[in-house]
């Protein structure tokens, strides 16, 4: 559905995207993760057709998205800080979207804002940040997009609203095979909804895989060895290790069975495989333990 090839973008001397490639399957929910300044928002804005690529291509449904109203009609983009026209009321934004997006469903929008208890006659600027976010979702979902682009979609939403918003998105995915490209720092929530993940670092796509494959490719294991051979054996692709007494905690690239077998074979007296979260994979994969915000 979304095909990004060799995408480059520079802002002055800063290379925000450097020959980035990405492929998003139709009907999938693709999570985009990466440290601050990695280029996630820039990538999303290219996919949304806001930015003009310096080099490379961004295709949505096989067509270039930049300066293509036909493609953009089938997309909706909810940035982290959605813009509403000054002085606009909720109903004004509805009217604007209805005039620009042919698939915009006014009734659908009305039913969505009813869910979130948003008054159509209220001025948008009088709404709280969370309510504005909800309104942005309502506008985006009412457009019935084939592709939904979300940048930090859950920031500023209370747990109830998060649940509700994600529920609506999942409904659309299930019923219409909508494709979702979502960028977030909240990897726990991303892990709940994504089926594919791409990790962006310094403008590159350094890893792109299905969540299943990703989680199956890393193992967190607690292991202890006999006192005379208390060293981590060679042959393991260790991303991270800690030691407390004689107990080693390792994050290792590979499958659980393979790692467990190798450790046992190397004389481990105790082996315990632990579940590894997306957040941990992200941290250890990009060597980003210093990213404390995670």
């Amino acid at each position, binding site marked *: 559905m979304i095909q990004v090839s060799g995408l480059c973008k520079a802002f002055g001397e800063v290379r925000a995207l450097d020959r980035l490639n990405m492929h998003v399957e139709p009907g999938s929910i693709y999570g985009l993760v990466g440290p601050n300044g990695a280029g996630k928002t820039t990538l999303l804005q290219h996919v949304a057709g806001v*930015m003009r690529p310096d080099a490379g291509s961004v295709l949505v449904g096989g067509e270039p998205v930049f300066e293509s109203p036909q493609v*953009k009609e089938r*997309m909706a*983009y909810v940035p982290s800080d959605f813009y509403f*026209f000054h002085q*606009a009321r909720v109903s004004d934004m509805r009217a604007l979207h209805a*005039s620009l997006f*042919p698939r915009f469903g006014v009734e659908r929008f009305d039913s969505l804002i009813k869910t979130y208890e948003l008054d159509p006659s209220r001025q948008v600027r009088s709404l709280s940040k969370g309510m504005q976010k909800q309104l942005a979702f309502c506008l985006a979902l009412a457009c019935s997009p084939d592709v939904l682009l979300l940048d930090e979609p859950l920031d500023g939403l209370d747990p109830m609203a998060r649940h509700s918003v994600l529920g609506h998105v999942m409904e659309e995915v299930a019923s219409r095979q909508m494709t979702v490209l979502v960028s977030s720092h909240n990897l726990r929530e991303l892990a709940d909804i994504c089926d594919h993940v791409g990790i962006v670092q310094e403008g590159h796509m350094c890893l792109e895989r299905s969540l299943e494959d990703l989680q199956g490719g890393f193992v967190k294991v607690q292991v202890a060895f006999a006192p005379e051979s208390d060293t981590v054996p060679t042959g393991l692709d260790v991303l991270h290790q800690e030691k407390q007494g004689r107990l080693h905690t390792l994050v290792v690239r590979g499958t659980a069975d393979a790692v467990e077998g190798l450790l046992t074979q190397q004389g481990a007296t105790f082996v315990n495989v632990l579940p590894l979260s997306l957040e941990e994979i992200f941290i250890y994969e990009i060597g980003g333990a210093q990213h404390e915000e995670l």
Partner: protein
Amino acid sequence: MKSSSLLSPGLVKSGLRRYWPLWLAGFVALLLLVVLPAYVSVPMIIGEAGSPADRESALDFFWSTMSFQAWIYALVSALVVALTLNDHLFDSRAATFVGSLPLRRTTVFASTFASGMLVLVALPAVTSLCLMPLCLALGQVFSPMRVMEWFALAVTLGFVFYSFAQLSCHASGTRLVATLIYGVIGFLAICIEAAARLLMSALVYGLSSDEIAFDWLAPGAHILSTLTLRYPDRGIAWMELAPYVLVACSAAAAAAWLFGRRELESAGDGVLFEPLRKALKCLAGISLALLFASVYRLLDVTSAFSGLPIGTGDLLVIAVLLAVGAFLGVLFADMIMSRSTHVLKSCWREGLAVTCVMLAFLGACRVDLLRVGRYVPKSDEVEMVILTCDHVSDSIEITSPEGIEDTRALQQHLIDYGGISDMKTDLTFTIDVSYKLKNGRFVHRSYPIVTNFPIAFEGEGHEGPDSQLLREFAGIADGDEGRAARFSKVLELKDNASVQIEYLLEDGSYSSVSLHGAEATDFVQNVLLTDLMEERAGEILYEMTSSEDMAEYDAVVYVDDLMESKAAGYEVYTESLQLSEGTPHILAWLEEHHPEIKLIEVDYDG
């Protein structure tokens, strides 16, 4: 809406709807600037006018003022509208939002442009409608056509300035820099327009500009005379609108071109195109220098240089103002664009360079490098000359070779004299020389003469260049052609006309006699005017007005007043007609009818 539409009605409506309080404020401004003055002033003008000519003249002045109001309104409102509707150029969030909408950039631009133009057309349109009841109430006196002309002017100026404002907004990413660019573009446009007019004059009409070289440095003074349309006898000069519309279309096209090429993410950046940064600094320097220079007219400093040769004071003041303006312009522009006050180190060289260029420009104007001011047509090229001097004489048409040669000589002397006025001295006469050339072109020049009245007219002890030039003019005006031009008209007296003759008695008191009907007509047409026509009523005009001791001079009437007042249907007034050998008809008439009169003042009440 189809994706390929040039206009997005949704975006247009949204823009118009969201900012309605601003549009309302604009309308209120127009009500105060145009509608209210019209309803207050026009009935007053019509009520107070003594004659149709006076009324027309007063209404012309009123519409000229309204044109100026339209100019100011367009200048300000165009910028406000452009800054308001182009959020997506200044706010990165708005840029992202607009960029993600299913619209081409051309559609976004066209829709924004159309929204603004709708406002700039609708408000003057409603204003014009508000003036219509006044037209209906006053009939043809306050013509709806004039209102339509004002509307056309307001819309055209709105279009011009809105295009400039759009261009400025699309060349920058912040409102402050956009305003700076708008100021520079607008200012330079005025200078360029003045230059274009002068060039056109030179090429088409034979250097017919009546501006002296120094006025180039005072574009502020040009604004009123160049950017407000004139109202000639047969209505607005519609063709004058065409170049403005053309310029506006070009600016709009340039803005659209810039929008197509700019990166939306650049919203918030000062200047989007690096080459523009240096150019803008220099242009800001030039603009501020010229603006400062135009302020010299307001400063009462030239009297401080009264000991220096004429024009030196202006030159020094303008040079200082130019230098300061140029340097500050560069400095401020750099501050605005880099959003920092620590710019002196980085831009002092550019400031110095612009200052030097401006001083060189001043020097070029001072020495009349283009030879515009020194141009005198050859005698054999001239078909006719029209000579005028304010305060002294109406237009004098000269066609004889001798008269033309005398006028050329006078013009040459005026050029040598300097042609630059120190505005604060006692009295400034302006001699206008208009040549009609045999090839059909016109050459028009104005020369101010500064004199120290009344010393200049006393003759003895003061034979400065000012006095000599005025005498030279008087010599031409008092020649056969000049006299014929001045005294050719004969008063047509009404049946109920009366003439009041006041006269001085030997004991110093005044008495008077009144003439009525046929007697008044006989006196004015056969006595007074006969003496005037035959050059028996005195020497040159200004001598009559200058002296405390009238007995030194032969008498003369105020011929200017006589002619103008007659046309306007007003009282004709002549003053202090000194009887002498030079007025034989008057003397004979008075001897016959009022032998006691020695010095008279004549009032004719028509």
